[in-house]
């Protein structure tokens, strides 16, 4: 009896038909890089908007032999990452890791890890807003027609107007890119820092938007070009002289947080990729 109550769920939570539907959609997404493929997006035990798209992709991919890493904003220990990891391991029994190089599947929100990913790894991204055209065309049916005709003129005008009004491309994250010289794609809320990592990468990137019920993909060795003008080229958030206060890295994506102390406190910038930062700190301690 104990055994029966302990095994109430299907392997990887989703039933076989739900997994198969997502698998079919994933294959089409890989065959049409950057194209948004609608999928059923079943109800999950977490609310839509908390990573259900990425979660459903991971649960359809995962085999008992996989090693899983889950990150949220680069952090393995934040609430979203911990809960998703617990749900996946309790329904699959897979091994988990915080080391980017040891994982076979990495589910992520907002970041691509700093350490280069390999061909035998898959990165699954949780997507809040799937369609890059929503800024200029809120109706998704009309936006689908624009994608089908590669009619991206309105988006270029939007980019131009943002320069005229603000003096710069006012897009901090979710930077639009053109994939395989055909489809315009949203890069999820990854910072501009991570956008170049999509271009001609070794790894397969899978994107899942649970609330918007869309799946899309960027296969390895695929051209991913950010939208830019000749006189306003695409730029990452890199600032000359930037440095992580913890590990001293000068070439990573940084986040700032307020540290309170006796003198009223100060702002400190550290690596967003916590596992990478910790690894660097540990290496420094060993050599010191």
């Amino acid at each position, binding site marked *: 009896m104990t055994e029966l109550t302990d095994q109430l769920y299907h392997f990887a939570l989703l039933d076989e038909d739900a997994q198969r539907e997502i698998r079919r959609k994933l294959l089409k997404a890989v065959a049409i890089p950057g*194209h948004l493929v609608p999928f059923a997006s079943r109800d999950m035990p977490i609310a839509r908007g908390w990573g259900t798209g990425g979660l459903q992709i991971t649960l359809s991919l995962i085999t008992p032999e996989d090693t899983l890493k889950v990150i949220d904003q680069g952090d393995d220990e934040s609430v979203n990452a911990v809960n998703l990891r617990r749900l996946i391991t309790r329904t699959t029994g897979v091994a988990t890791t915080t080391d980017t190089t040891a994982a076979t599947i990495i589910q992520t929100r907002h970041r691509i890890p700093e350490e280069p990913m390999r061909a035998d790894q898959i990165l699954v991204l949780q997507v809040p807003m799937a369609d890059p055209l929503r800024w200029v065309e809120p109706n998704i049916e009309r936006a689908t027609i624009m994608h089908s005709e590669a009619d991206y003129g309105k988006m270029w005008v939007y980019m131009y107007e943002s320069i005229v009004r603000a003096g710069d491309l006012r897009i901090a994250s979710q930077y639009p890119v053109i994939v395989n010289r*055909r489809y315009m794609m949203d890069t999820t809320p990854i910072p501009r820092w991570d956008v170049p990592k999509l271009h001609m990468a070794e790894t397969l990137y899978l994107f899942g938007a649970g609330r918007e019920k869309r799946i899309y993909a960027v296969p390895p060795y695929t051209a991913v070009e950010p939208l830019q003008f000749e006189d306003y080229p695409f730029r990452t958030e890199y600032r000359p002289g930037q440095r992580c206060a913890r590990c001293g890295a000068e070439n990573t994506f940084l986040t700032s947080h307020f540290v309170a102390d006796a003198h009223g406190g100060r702002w400190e910038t550290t690596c967003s990729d916590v596992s990478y930062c910790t690894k660097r700190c540990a290496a420094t301690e060993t050599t010191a």
Partner: protein
Amino acid sequence: MSLVAAPQTPLERFNGQTFRVLLDCLARPGKIGQLPSPPFTSVPSPADTTPSNVTAIAACMSLLDQTVSFVHAVDKSWLPATHPLSRWIMVRSNARLVTPAMADFALLHDFASIALLPQLPEGTLLYPEHSCTVFLCVPAIVAGGKTLRLTGPGIATVVTVGLPDAASNDLAGLMARRGLFPLGVDLFLIDRQGFCLGLPRTTEISLC
């Protein structure tokens, strides 16, 4: 942390492992994947002269259920619903056997049936994903061989693949109806040893 899910059945395990191989092969055209051995025995033959490629049939069935449709062919002709193999697949997958122009999946039991490729749906500009996924049985696939030269997304520069025993007509059939991106048919070539080659619509194919 205690596990709350039942272990996979042999068929679920096969479907999960097969999907990973198919995904990898489609994301990296030219890479030859090894499909796991299928948990099926005594599968009917498509024709007296053509033995069934059980791995290819099982790989196709791993994606079939009651919401999708399929067709299958041998010797350049589509097989009817009354064929023993059609019934064998339908009763196990619940998928519907339909006309070629409506099929979500196509299983071509011999290389010559590639001539039927133009009859399969290629999707529409609004819904390019409404296109057929084809499982093509071939005698042998050799990594790095000198038959096909592939370029496109998923390939670093150029990759070559060998298809020994392939007739020039069949190779011409394989290269037909390409270059229509985002429309097109996505192919999986599966040989008798269970080796798999993915050819998505994005791959440009030429002869070596």
